[in-house]
């Protein structure tokens, strides 16, 4: 028995799975994959001395554009169906991400021009975060209007120190496309090897 997974080209995060077969257009629709509630909200109240940046609202919603996605057939795995976001698509299998404790990896800051990923404040002394290997990054920012979307693909280079800044583009590799202030944005951050992160930010 096989299953079909839909995953992000850049970071290989599995975003959807089904026992049905078909091409991307049939499985997710022409406009892309509609996603909500990829990650839980912060504890309330947030423990003192903790700062991961703006929290999720639980209302985040995203339409991942079809060109950013791929479809693959893998042997059926019930765990992937139940918790797809905890797996990455490998060549011929789905690989589970390391366990998460609810902590967020990075602190998120959004400006009109870029999104910054910085070292979080956790009440502990955390040195600047750096990675021993390159990590692909996918960022999507959705305004309340369906056309108000920014899609950024980038890389956190190995041994780079925080903060990591990603300038906003309407589509990966496209010209810079700043966002307007005075609006609410839903932010999806996918870093290769880590669970999804989503936030709601009023700019």
């Amino acid at each position, binding site marked *: 028995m096989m299953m079909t997974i839909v995953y992000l080209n850049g970071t290989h995060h599995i975003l*959807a799975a089904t026992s049905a077969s078909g091409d991307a257009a049939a499985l997710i629709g022409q406009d892309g994959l509609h996603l909500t509630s990829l990650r839980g909200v912060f504890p309330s109240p947030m423990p003192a001395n903790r700062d991961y940046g703006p929290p999720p609202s639980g209302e985040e919603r995203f339409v991942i554009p079809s060109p950013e996605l791929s479809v693959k057939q893998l042997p059926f795995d019930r765990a992937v169906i139940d918790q797809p976001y905890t797996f990455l698509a490998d060549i011929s299998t789905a690989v589970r991400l390391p366990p998460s404790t609810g902590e967020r990896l990075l602190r998120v800051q959004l400006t009109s021009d870029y999104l910054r990923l910085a070292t979080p404040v956790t009440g502990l002394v955390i040195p600047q975060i750096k990675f021993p290997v390159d990590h692909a990054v996918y960022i999507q920012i959705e305004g309340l209007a369906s056309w108000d979307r920014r899609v950024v693909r980038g890389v956190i280079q190995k041994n780079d120190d925080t903060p990591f800044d990603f300038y906003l583009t309407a589509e990966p590799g496209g010209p810079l496309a700043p966002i307007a202030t005075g609006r609410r944005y839903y932010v999806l951050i996918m870093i290769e090897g880590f669970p999804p992160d989503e936030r709601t930010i009023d700019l």
Partner: protein
Amino acid sequence: MGDLIQRPRFFEGQVLASTDLTATIDYARGEQARHDRLVHEWGIVDGLQLIATAQGGFVTVRVSAGLAIDGTGREIVVPNDQILDEKLFARSNVAVGDPTALYPVLLAGVDAAGLPVAATRSCTAAQASRTVETWKLAFGAPGDETKLAGTQTSPHVEQGAGGAVDQPRWWIVLGFVAWDPIQQRFTSISERANDVGRRYVGVRADEVTGQGGRLVLRARMAATKGAPIATLAQTPAGGALTLALDNGTGGTVPKVVATTDGTLESDTGKLVLRAGAANMIGKPMARLDETAAGGTFAFGLQDASGNSSRLLEVDEQGNLTIAGIFRGLFGGAVRLASGTATDGVILPLPDGITDAQVASGAVALHIMVIPRAPGAAPYDADLVHYPYWVGHASSAGVDALRRVFCKIQWLGFHSGGGAPHHEVLAGAVDYLVAAVVK
């Protein structure tokens, strides 16, 4: 570079030389040869058959009288039957030890000086006043027949019969003989060897036009019983192409008729359509058979013997038999699709059902989704501080595009007590899509 053709002309008082008279003949002969060579294809026109007469364990072979046109446009007339000379064969030095070997029997045209001797008043030497258009029979070694096609070249365009002076003889294969090298006798004859056989005259044409509304192609001479015939005929409704067999008197027995109104008709009691040759296994084929009760229609894949595997068959009663699954739609039919899908996935339609059928109202969809059990805790739960979790589906369904939405509401209980922590995460559903044909 060739010479221009010269046509003799005469005037009153002209003293005619022999060359003038010869040119008159040569002009006409050359024109005829060019026509025969370039408008037609060379080969046997009539007769020239090898005929074997058994004599004990051997055969006497003769070549029947006949006519051929060689590749130079030369006409070769063999006016009488000719016995193949076994001594000539023996002298030809082509024999090999294999008694099954086939030796080509070859014919070529030859010009020879002939009588009567011209009467002259001078004391010059007597000269022949006729050219005898004779012929020569020869035998080739086994396999020589395959070499002829590559070595015999047509004369230059302006050349007449026989070609230029240095044009080699043009050999025509009449058939083949087998030879007993011990007894020095012919043992049998054959029409073909090494895929080479008797070649008959043809015609070069991009277009052949009939005038009486009927054009006939015969594979054999008329009245050859069983020989295939193709007839293109004008009919009151347009036209028809008929494949038929000769009935032995020159008449036709139609077998297959294709008409310009798109009808394909078989008079053999069957009609077979194949997507490949009869010996190609697995090629699709459709077959219409006449039976005592009416007829049957079958579709299938071809087996080794050229028969259909009969994947589908309809008999004269309208009974349908299929080897696979019926995917067609009929009123009241229900098609199902089931499986598991995560939030965001568009559920598939059952096999054979299209979005267009659903949109038109020809098919009604009934979709049931059941949220899957969410497990013990959210995937990113802080189990250190919130070791206890309860999850249940807060919503599950599909939108108008059959896109799944499924939300799991989680309650996490802090080890130190206090209000539980709320989280909502996407989930997965088991689904059943039922398509009912109206």
